[in-house]
């Protein structure tokens, strides 16, 4: 008995509403992030990640209000990501009640920002999001590269080296998304998950590609992930969080049931 592996549902939020739609069993949800976060909390989610995809600055204030309301109701860790570019952005989110922020593009364009942020707020609240894509050809040794702009723009950065660098710069946790698996439902890229998980000292959250509960199991048992993040399999009611947790526990994984 010991540290449980975590299941983290992810909410994509635009101007204060959850987009992509959420459909819990028997309930058609219009997408209020506070209600959805509460429901996931009641189901036993270990954390909640709130990904702000709002484009306009005015609408960003709505997001801050949402984070405040969630933090006043849901007493489990809350990570906020999307558009975090400055220490002011981080302070705003932490003051609103976020426990961690996830830094993505800004880490690639300015790695020193990660250093500055972790010095100022502590590594425990700095998550670096890594979007990786497999770039090695068939028969070559596996190699993954960092991509930005939703997987469209290559950076030339080796994913494993980048992960190590981000931890040196003060990342307290890594959120690893396999861009070539995202949305495919064929499972995590276990190769890059294991390579990064073994290369760094901090926890790794696996994301991208979950289609069934075996994928969650493999993320932990084969990928070495400390936590698994998923959106659609929970949003659309294919599986509930308690179902996923029991399934993983039955396969020998320590879970918080």
């Amino acid at each position, binding site marked *: *008995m*010991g*540290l*449980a*592996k*975590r299941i983290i549902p992810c909410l994509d939020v635009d101007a204060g509403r959850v987009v992509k739609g959420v459909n819990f069993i028997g309930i058609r949800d219009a997408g209020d992030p506070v209600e959805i976060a509460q429901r996931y*909390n009641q189901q036993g989610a*270990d954390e909640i990640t709130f990904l702000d995809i709002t484009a306009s600055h005015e609408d960003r204030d709505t997001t801050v209000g949402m984070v405040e309301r969630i*933090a*006043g109701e849901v*007493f*489990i*860790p809350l990570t906020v990501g999307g558009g975090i570019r400055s220490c002011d952005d981080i302070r705003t989110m*932490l*003051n*609103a*009640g976020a*426990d961690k922020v996830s830094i993505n593009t800004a880490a690639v364009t300015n790695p020193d920002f990660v250093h500055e942020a972790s010095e100022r*707020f*502590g*590594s*425990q*609240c700095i998550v670096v999001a890594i979007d990786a894509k497999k770039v090695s050809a068939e028969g070559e040794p596996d190699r993954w590269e960092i991509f930005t702009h939703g997987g469209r723009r290559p950076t030339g950065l080796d994913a494993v080296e980048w992960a190590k660098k981000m931890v040196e710069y003060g990342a*307290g*946790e890594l959120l690893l998304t396999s861009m070539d698996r995202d949305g495919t439902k064929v499972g995590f890229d276990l190769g890059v998950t294991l390579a990064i*998980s*073994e290369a760094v*000292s*901090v*926890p*790794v959250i696996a994301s991208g590609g979950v289609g069934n509960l075996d994928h969650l199991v493999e993320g*932990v*048992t084969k990928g*070495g992930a*400390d*936590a698994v993040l998923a959106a659609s399999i929970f949003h659309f009611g294919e599986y509930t969080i308690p179902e996923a947790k029991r399934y993983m526990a039955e396969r*020998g994984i*320590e879970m*918080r049931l």
Partner: protein
Amino acid sequence: MTIAVIDYGMGNLHSVAKALEHVTHENVIITRDPRCIRGATRLVLPGQGAIRDCMGELERTDLRGLVQDLLARQDKPLLGICVGQQMLLDRSEENGGIDCLGFLAGDVKRFPADMRDDFDHRLKVPHMGWNLAHQHHVHPLWEGIDQDEHFYFVHSYYVAATDDATVFGTTDYGRVTAHVAIGRDATFAVQFHPEKSSRAGLRLLENFVNWAP
């Protein structure tokens, strides 16, 4: 009736204050004003980040003497959280060795880097996530909380107290048994984050608010 969350500049205190407000109608304030701290009925000593910075900020804000005086008096309940727990010990290994407040006998040590899990994967440091708190001695703050309940942790260093009578809870991680709940008299301190530990954490905070040592 006022609960003062002591703000010496380290960490995010909003989560703690919000969780307290959720379990009590008493006034919850985040403050570094010595008069407010002395006048409060209960105190929360939080802490995040490196212990050198926490001890340094406590000095810089002139609150170290006050906190030490309050610890010596034990005339009102105090709850330490995370680094706020570690600061109560004699000394921490972190940052090359830092003298702490010395309220409880023992040290703060780093988790070993070479631990493996059941699947032979690397055990991470920080110890981050939900782990079981084993209630080692009975305490009013454990009331209504199941034995071996999950709480949320984030830490790379852990408490090793030397006096068993001060250890109220333990948690296993790899080959380490950390002292995650310690205390004596009107002071109780936990390594985990009750404000992020869902129902069990809120119950512990409620127990603290109702505690009359």
